[in-house]
């Protein structure tokens, strides 16, 4: 990764706004979280570290929590766990709250609860020219004004610096368990069809290493009765709860996390097109999937820009979505730059430009 010229670490949102309003540098501005899943930095870039935005304001009875963008997401979850609540997002790897939003990071729970876009109910941000803005708020139902928070979700820091995020919280899961079944990739759609036919209500349906996992949560009685239904249909197989559940689900999540020189690519399409998604991922080193959501994650090592462009093109030709989700250390900057260029192109690019007219957060990255 290229050396960064300067790091700015404001203490308050107002200070950040003032800094941006007076900013005259020519490089890009890059909000950063814990730098675990960053996009490329170049000489002349100024990174904005939001680590000092570290407040948590939990309103337990109202089922909301506001957190500064610099709060560590897993630490926030731990805090909520002690209060018997949680944010129903289970990203495979940690990071700051701001980065979670900017990378739209979620896991299997999105099947039941939706992703980051569905659980963020308010946010404050500072735009490239120092304009402070907020939308949404502290109530779980709210349709006043444009939903600016949505523009932040998946924005990779190209739109604005996220200052604070308000999440809806849910009660902690009372009991969790999952059942594992051998399912090869080619049979994934069939498996899904059979599972849906059983009238069970999994919170997640995962797939990795020729195994499908149906994950349940709720009361012990409710979960066990659904697992019995599965066993009656598919025959006895492995059931995991307690520590064994936690351990195995971490292992499944771990598959998506890129190591040194690895890139995780997310392919999305309808569940009926899972076979095509798996086909696109066939050159990957590791593959996993959120079956119910029509998402396949493929980890490639030493992926070149032309290979990435090839993947983008074939996904586009087939009407499937492709996104670079995460990168390990040592991935060529050009691979990352190619990803950003796609994100800021076309109509999306124009919307970004309207919010950040000087394109301070996406300078030089027009697609």
């Amino acid at each position, binding site marked *: 990764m290229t050396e960064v010229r300067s790091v700015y670490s404001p203490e308050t949102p107002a200070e950040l706004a003032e800094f941006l309003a007076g900013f005259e540098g020519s490089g890009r501005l890059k909000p950063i979280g814990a730098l675990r899943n960053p996009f490329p930095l170049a000489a002349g870039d100024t990174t904005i570290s939001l680590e000092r935005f570290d407040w948590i304001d939990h309103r337990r009875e109202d089922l909301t929590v506001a957190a500064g963008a610099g709060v560590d997401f897993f630490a926030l979850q731990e805090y909520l766990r002690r209060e018997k609540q949680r944010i129903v997002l289970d990203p495979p790897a940690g990071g700051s709250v701001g980065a979670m939003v900017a990378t739209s990071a979620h896991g299997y729970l999105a099947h039941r609860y939706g992703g980051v876009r569905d659980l963020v109910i308010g946010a404050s941000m500072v735009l490239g020219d120092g304009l402070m803005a907020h939308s949404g708020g502290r109530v779980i139902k709210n349709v006043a004004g444009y939903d*600016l928070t949505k523009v932040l979700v998946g924005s990779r820091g190209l739109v604005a610096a996220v200052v604070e995020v308000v999440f809806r919280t849910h009660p902690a899961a009372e009991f969790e368990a999952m059942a594992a079944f051998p399912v090869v990739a080619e049979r994934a759609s069939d498996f899904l069809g059979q599972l849906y036919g059983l009238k069970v209500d999994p919170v997640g349906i995962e797939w990795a290493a020729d195994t499908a996992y149906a994950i349940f949560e709720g009361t012990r009685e409710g979960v066990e009765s659904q697992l019995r239904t599965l066993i009656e249909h598919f025959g006895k197989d492995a059931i995991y709860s307690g520590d064994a559940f936690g351990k195995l689900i971490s292992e499944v999540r771990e598959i998506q996390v890129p190591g040194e020189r690895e890139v995780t690519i997310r392919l999305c399409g309808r569940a009926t097109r899972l076979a095509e998604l798996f086909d696109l991922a066939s050159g990957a080193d590791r593959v996993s999937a959120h079956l119910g959501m029509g998402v396949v994650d493929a980890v490639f090592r030493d992926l070149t820009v032309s290979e990435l462009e090839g993947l983008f093109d074939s996904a586009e030709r087939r009407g499937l979505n492709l996104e670079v989700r995460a990168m390990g250390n040592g991935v060529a900057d050009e691979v990352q730059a190619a990803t950003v260029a796609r994100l800021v192109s076309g109509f999306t690019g124009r919307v970004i430009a309207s919010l950040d007219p000087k394109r301070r957060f996406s300078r030089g990255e027009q697609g």
Partner: protein
Amino acid sequence: MTGTVGGLDRFIEFARALLDKESLILDRSERLAYSCDGLTSHRALPAVVAIPKSRDELVLVVKALARYGVPFVARGAGTGLSGGALPDAEGVLVVTARLDSIIEIDPLSRLAVVEPGVVNLDLSKAVAEHGLYFAPDPSSQIACTIGGNVAENSGGAHCFKYGFTSNHILGLEVVTPTGELVWLGGETLEAPGPDLRGVVVGAEGTAGIVTRIACRLMAVPEARKTLISYFDSVDAAGDAVSTIVSSGLVPAAVEMMDNLALKACELATKAGLDTTAAAALLVELDGPSVEVEVGFARLCTVLEEKGAREIWVAQSEEERALMWLARKAAFAAAGRVAPAYIVQDGVIPRTALPEVLTEIEALAKSSGLAILNVFHAGDGNLHPLVTYDPAIVGATERANEVAAVILSLCLRVGGSITGEHGVGVDKVCHMPEMFSTSDLEAFSRLRRAFDPEGICNRDKLLPTPKLCGERAGSLSGAPVVSR
């Protein structure tokens, strides 16, 4: 320049060549039928009404409007309650009601692709044979369109568990006010980059006209159990809601009605509601049957502990339907107890319920106007119905004042001026109370990205000096940043 006579004439000439007679309404008396939506206090006569028969026609119409700089407003079924579909007197009202095809149902992917004029309930009916349904369920669902739901990010009684329209839209195609046709989002929950579909949902028809929608479908729950429990005080009912929520239960719906609302609903539906109670909660649990059984037993324990004087449990699907009929009749039922009423829509953090309800009661007393309270208690979405008699001099103004005070009250406790009906024309001048000048500037930037010429649903959603006078946004208005 927008709204020039020349532009409109040229549009009419174009539209005459494109649309058949039924699709282009120029006759004044026919146009009158479109002069308002559900907010009947605001009216305007559209210069032209266009009712395209196909998506291609619709796209060509919008492209022409963009080309000639003619202002326009989209209209679905016209059930909106904030004046979102109020016509532009200098422009064209584009009605999507005829675009009512369900283009595709993909049960395994739990997805349906629909045109914007499909009526909300028709989609659920069409996918029922696959054991699926479309979760957003506004009380108007027998009439309102999915295009309207998208524009308003409509909610309903089951938002507490299932969220709003936005949570059930995977992708959409929109013809923007510049005449571009773009697909935003995807066909799954996941789509790369900034979530622009999420911006169009809830944009109140200011980002263009939505032409196709990929809707997420949900499995019909294996079991549903519904009850109505009665309380001797509104406070006791509110306290029961808090305990239900903090007990870890996530009911599909928690609705509350006060005594006046109970009386009105009973008059309208004869459902058998206890009209002597001070308040009632309608609570519904759904999910796998064992889960529902266990949860329901817990729910009943909580309600009894919290002083419910009677619990009516629905014993059949018909009885459940009756309970919902009574609840959903509330707006119309208010007409049984008063000659006129204002439907207010505000949101508060749920914990502020006792404080806010006490203040609303005091407002009713001091204004001499009866206020019925019926609301989505789980998510703090209030719908006070401020009743009045327009025949009494000054009563209409007083009712409007009371409705406005209720909104300020919602904001004072950290809430919002609208939970589901939208801002439209109705609340546009309340926006600076909730948002700072810089928030509003950010909103304007976003709006200009979609509509640089300002021709789409003008004078709605965002305040202008022309509409609201020089009223700057309150700089302390941002309720989010807590330090």
